[in-house]
């Protein structure tokens, strides 16, 4: 089996837009979703800003039963279910009635699940109130909570699982879904990932001083990938979802196709050669990119757009250098590159999928979303790539091939190649 695989549905819950229409408009206009966060300030965080999606009660009621909402305190499950079900509907797919849809599954990643519910539960256990945990402490805090919720709501009868690989989670879910369809084990997989919001998720990053503490008064200017004044990540949250489907199935259904997934690669730097728990081994990053191109059967010279990992730490210049080496391209010859994190912050385990939703939209509609907050390009990046390749304004431009990479703690990497699909 060697099925071609395409993207036929998108859903997103991002700090700068919930739903594809709002998100698409936001990324074209360069709208930041970063806000001052009073809770973080009250808890004496160094970084008192964050990217938190807007999910009003009325929206939640469209996707959850009253009873579910009564008990739900897992923000990641709320974001993931909304994004996932939006993607399913966007693909024109129905919710399975009595019989499960044996050909459809979900691989929906998460870094952790229901940290707020977990906190409530820990307090109750320590207060000798284990019997008062209620019936959903397990389902909200098991890492696979999000895929379990989606599987039940949609009636999925194929593989229903959650992958977890830090900030590569979202990209990894899409590649795992791609492989499952390519080899004929499923016709459709709802791929994506989610990340909880709030102090109990972001606290560890604050403690490591990887979150910026220099922009509490200017939230929208805080997330500065590729900038000389980049000073750390802005913690974000949300979910991105993509329906991956065999080309045959998509054509048979007459579905709208956003893009084709040509292939990709996942690897690890083994925490060797400069790689560590928190830093990537550059050789592994370069190998991941070149292997992705090879697997997709495309030439480095043909890549039109890179959507980087680019987190707004001091590591951005190293990432650019790795792209230059892997693609053997630099200066004016470098592809266009953008960093969605400039608008939404670092959505952690959700980052890869939210960014892939952005890439699919750019391929479908033919645009390059602007990079905000890099007016003062880092000199090490300026030395490698022509300024014009890092657009600060929206560009309407036909994009044929895009490469998306994500890197995560544990020295893990993923790179995916997407191509515009010309629909007759």
């Amino acid at each position, binding site marked *: 089996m060697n099925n071609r695989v395409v993207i036929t549905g998108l859903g997103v819950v991002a700090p700068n837009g919930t739903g594809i229409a709002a998100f698409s408009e936001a990324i074209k206009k360069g709208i930041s979703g970063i806000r001052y966060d009073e809770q973080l300030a009250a808890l004496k965080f160094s970084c008192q800003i964050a990217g938190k999606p807007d999910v009003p009660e009325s929206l939640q009621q469209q996707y959850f039963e*009253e*009873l579910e909402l*009564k*008990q739900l305190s897992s923000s990641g499950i709320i974001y993931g279910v909304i994004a996932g079900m939006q993607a399913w509907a966007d693909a024109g797919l129905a919710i399975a009635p009595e019989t499960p849809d044996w050909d459809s599954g979900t691989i929906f990643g998460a870094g952790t699940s229901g940290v707020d519910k977990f906190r409530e539960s820990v307090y109750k256990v320590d207060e000798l109130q284990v019997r*008062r945990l*209620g*019936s959903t402490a397990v389902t909200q805090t098991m890492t696979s909570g999000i895929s379990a919720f989606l599987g039940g709501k949609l009636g999925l009868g194929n593989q229903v699982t959650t992958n977890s690989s830090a900030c590569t989670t979202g990209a990894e879910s899409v590649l795992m879904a791609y492989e499952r369809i390519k080899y004929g084990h499923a016709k459709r997989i709802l791929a994506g990932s989610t990340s909880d919001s709030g102090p109990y998720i972001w606290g560890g990053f604050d403690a490591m001083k990887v979150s910026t503490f220099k922009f509490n008064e200017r939230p929208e200017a805080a997330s500065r990938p590729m900038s000389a004044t980049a000073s750390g990540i802005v913690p974000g949250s949300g979910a991105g979802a993509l329906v991956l489907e065999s080309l045959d199935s998509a054509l048979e259904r007459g579905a709208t196709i956003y893009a084709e997934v040509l292939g990709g690669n996942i690897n690890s730097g083994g925490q060797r050669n400069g790689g560590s728990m928190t830093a990537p081994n550059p050789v592994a990053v370069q190998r991941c990119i070149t292997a992705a191109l090879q697997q997709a059967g495309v030439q480095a010279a043909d890549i039109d757009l890179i959507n980087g990992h680019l987190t707004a730490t001091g590591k951005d210049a190293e990432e650019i250098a790795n792209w230059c080496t892997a693609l053997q391209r630099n200066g004016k010859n470098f592809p266009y590159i953008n960093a969605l994190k400039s608008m939404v912050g670092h959505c952690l385990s959700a980052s890869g999928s939210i960014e892939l939703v952005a890439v699919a939209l750019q391929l479908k509609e033919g645009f390059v979303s602007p990079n905000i907050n890099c007016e003062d390009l880092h000199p090490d990046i300026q030395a490698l790539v022509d300024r014009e390749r890092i657009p600060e304004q929206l560009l309407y431009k036909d994009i044929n091939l895009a490469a998306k990479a994500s890197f995560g703690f544990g020295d893990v990497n993923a790179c995916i190649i997407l191509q515009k699909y010309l629909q007759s």
Partner: protein
Amino acid sequence: MDKETFIEQLREIVRPYAKNQEALATINTSTDFINDLKINSANLVDVVLDVEEKYDIVIQNEEMERMLNVQAALDIVEAKLNEK
């Protein structure tokens, strides 16, 4: 507390969990939580917690096991309230 008042209060407690709203409308002492109201068995512990909260009582594991219908709930709650 009279039986009618209890059933009325219990109806409100189980309302969010009951999948069969018709059975909820005609709830009576012989109504079974799972078979009639179609409450998911996992949610029975939530019903018990909500009953405990409403009447400020503690229901033991063995009592919880047999609290499967309105009559059993009534018996258990009445006994607990009388102990107070």
